[in-house]
C-alpha cells in the first residue's frame, strides 16, 4: 500500500523554538507539498518541491522553510515557532500528470 508518512501526529512546541516536520513517501514521486489546514481557510500551500533540492514558495511561505535532500523526504521547518503557526500540517505527494495527491495523516502542531 503506497504511503505518505508524517513523523508525528501531535506536537507541542514553545514559542521561538525551531521545529522540524518530516514527511516521507514511498511512491517515487517527484512532486511533494506542504499545506496547512485551518478552520474556515481550507488547505493553504506553504511550499512545494518538484525535484530533489528544488523548492518553490506557495501562498503562505512566511516563517517557514523546507529541505529536500532526497527524493522521498520533504521537511518543513519553522524557523522560530509562533502561536499563529498552531495548525494542522499536511504533506502530500504526486507523480504529476492527471494524478491527484496522496496525503499523509497530518501533524497537529500546537505552539504555546
Amino acid at each position, binding site marked *: 500500500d503506497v504511503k505518505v508518512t508524517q513523523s508525528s501526529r501531535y506536537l507541542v512546541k514553545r514559542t521561538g523554538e525551531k521545529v522540524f516536520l518530516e514527511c516521507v513517501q514511498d511512491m517515487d514521486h517527484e512532486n511533494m507539498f506542504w499545506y496547512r489546514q485551518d478552520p474556515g*481557510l481550507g488547505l493553504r500551500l506553504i511550499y512545494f518541491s518538484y525535484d530533489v533540492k528544488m523548492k518553490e514558495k506557495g501562498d503562505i511561505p512566511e516563517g517557514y522553510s523546507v529541505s529536500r535532500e532526497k527524493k522521498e523526504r520533504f521537511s518543513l521547518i519553522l524557523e522560530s515557532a509562533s502561536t499563529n503557526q498552531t495548525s494542522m500540517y499536511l504533506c502530500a505527494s504526486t507523480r504529476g500528470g492527471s494524478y491527484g495527491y496522496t496525503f499523509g*495523516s497530518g501533524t497537529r502542531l500546537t505552539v504555546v
Partner: protein
Amino acid sequence: DQQVKQNSPSLSVQEGRISILNCDYTNSMFDYFLWYKKYPAEGPTFLISISSIKDKNEDGRFTVFLNKSAKHLSLHIVPSQPGDSAVYFCAARDSPSGTYKYIFGTGTRLKVLA
C-alpha cells in the same frame, strides 16, 4: 483572492437522501478538478476527479458535474450514508503555472443524519 470557493461551510442531509456539495472557481485555465474527503485528525483522501474536457464523472455513489461556462462544479452523493459525514474539499489544478499545484477550497462539512 480565493480562486476556489466553497460557499457553504456546512450541510446536513438525511440518510438515504442526496447530498450536493458545490464549488466555484474563478480561473478558466484550471484543467483538472478533484474532490477530497477528510475525517478529523486524518489526511484528506481522494474521492473523484474530472477533467475540464468532460462535464460528468461517476464512481459508485459519487458523481461530479462540471459546468465550465459557469465555472462551477458539484459533487452528488446518492444515497447519503452516515459514514459520509466528513469535510469535503474541492481542488483545482493550476496547470498554467507549469507545476502540479492544486488550489483547494475552504471545505464543506457534511453531516448525514441517521
